[in-house]
């Protein structure tokens, strides 16, 4: 990653910012989702900008599906949705553009009711405070227009309306009972939220009422080690540079001898000149 390369060259600490820790130079991640309850299955296409051949095609993506992240080179992309089985050359039902930055992750989801279907690009967080987990809620239930989402009995999103995406919240690492409470239905589930993990909870209309899907977006060391790692004792290091002084002393002695000898040569030369009296 660019910041890691800079650290190597100019010896400054790599800035973490909000980017993930990928060292693959210029790689980001993108995943595709269908979160519109009354829209039939779609085919989803991901194009690299300017390219008419799709980089990724997902066929027959039904409501409630979130694809795994695909690693893609950083750059500009477009996402298109067509009815399932429609020709790749046909006019898409929806399309949107996405700029993927290196070390960043994105979710592109079909959201809203079928009559108002839109493609929403979400920036996915990939960092956590030490010892905590980060959670956000996507409310994709049409039947329960407003949902209260709780974690351990406490509301982390008091009023999630249909087709909304909440901001991320840091919660203590633990196994929590989560609830999505709507006027006509409640879903309850227990999930382990480990330190150093990022989650997106998706509230869906299931066959028997509300359902909660727990997506683990990213994970790392919940409590990273401090500093560098001591994994060497020097047995293969070769002899280091000893003191150069002995060699300098030798060179110095040689210089003294040479100068002394040279002076004597000059004196003899002068002597001869004086003797011959030129």
């Amino acid at each position, binding site marked *: 990653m660019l910041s890691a390369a800079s650290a190597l060259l100019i010896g400054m600490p790599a800035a973490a910012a909000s980017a993930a820790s990928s060292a693959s130079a210029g790689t980001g991640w993108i995943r595709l989702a269908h979160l519109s309850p009354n829209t039939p299955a779609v085919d989803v296409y991901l194009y690299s900008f300017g390219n008419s051949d799709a980089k990724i095609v997902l066929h027959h993506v039904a409501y409630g599906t979130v694809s795994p992240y695909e690693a893609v080179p950083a750059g500009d992309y477009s996402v298109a949705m067509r009815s399932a089985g429609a020709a790749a050359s046909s006019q898409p039902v929806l399309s949107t553009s996405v700029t993927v930055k290196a070390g960043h992750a994105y979710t592109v989801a079909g959201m809203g009711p079928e009559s108002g279907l839109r493609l929403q690009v979400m920036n996915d967080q990939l960092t956590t405070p030490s010892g905590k987990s980060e959670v956000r809620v996507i409310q994709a239930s049409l039947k329960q227009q407003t949902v209260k989402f709780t974690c351990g009995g406490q509301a982390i999103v008091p009023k999630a309306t249909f087709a909304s995406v909440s901001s991320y919240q840091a919660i203590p690492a633990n196994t929590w009972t989560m609830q999505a409470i709507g006027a006509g239905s409640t879903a309850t589930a227990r999930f382990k939220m480990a330190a150093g993990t990022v989650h997106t909870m998706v509230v869906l209309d299931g066959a028997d009422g509300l359902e909660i899907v727990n997506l683990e977006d990213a994970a790392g060391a919940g409590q990273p080690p401090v500093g560098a790692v001591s994994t060497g*004792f020097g047995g293969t290091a070769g002899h280091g540079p000893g003191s150069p002084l002995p060699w300098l002393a030798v060179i110095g002695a040689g210089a003294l001898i040479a100068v002394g000898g040279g002076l004597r040569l000059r004196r003899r030369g002068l002597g001869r000149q004086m003797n011959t009296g030129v």
Partner: protein
Amino acid sequence: MIAFAAGLVVIVGGTAGLLLTHHSTPALRPVAAGVAALPVPTGPIVAPPQSAAAQVARPVSLTIPLIGVKTNLITLGLAAGGAMQVPAASTVAGWFTGSPRPGAVGSSIIVGHVDNKHRAGIFFRLPELKRGDDIYVKRADGTTAEFRVTEVQEYPKDHFPTDTVYGPTPDAELRLITCGGAFDPVTHHYLSNIIVYATQVR
């Protein structure tokens, strides 16, 4: 005349000696040659799990065929003071249990020594790895996760990029850590860490 010539000889000899035994950069460790490549481990190679609920089995061994690395994996935690614990022996590598398991979502950390006081350690040849090289981690349930090297980096230890190495990633990644760079004979420590980054293949 003789003294002058002798003096020149001594100067030349001294300079040659100085140049031959001293380098403008501190002594770097040599890279070993010609270890035969190891076979790929047997057993099913599986893709990363699709669901967050799917639990990935614990790692038990690491094989890097191209550089002749084959080791069981011990477990490592944090030492007192919060630094990474390191294996007591230079001949085994260890998985940092504070990181995700290899093949689960996230950045999994494996640590090994480059050498001990007398000879090469398990990760001596790590710097030879290049983008595209294969790394295999066998797990307690008999499955194997295959990773492909994406990058090899060297960082000065006094500017270790903690977030870059240990922070969250959305995919199943592996980071192998060892020492490298110049060795400081006064403190008896290498001055850099070498990190090999790899991503699980599907």
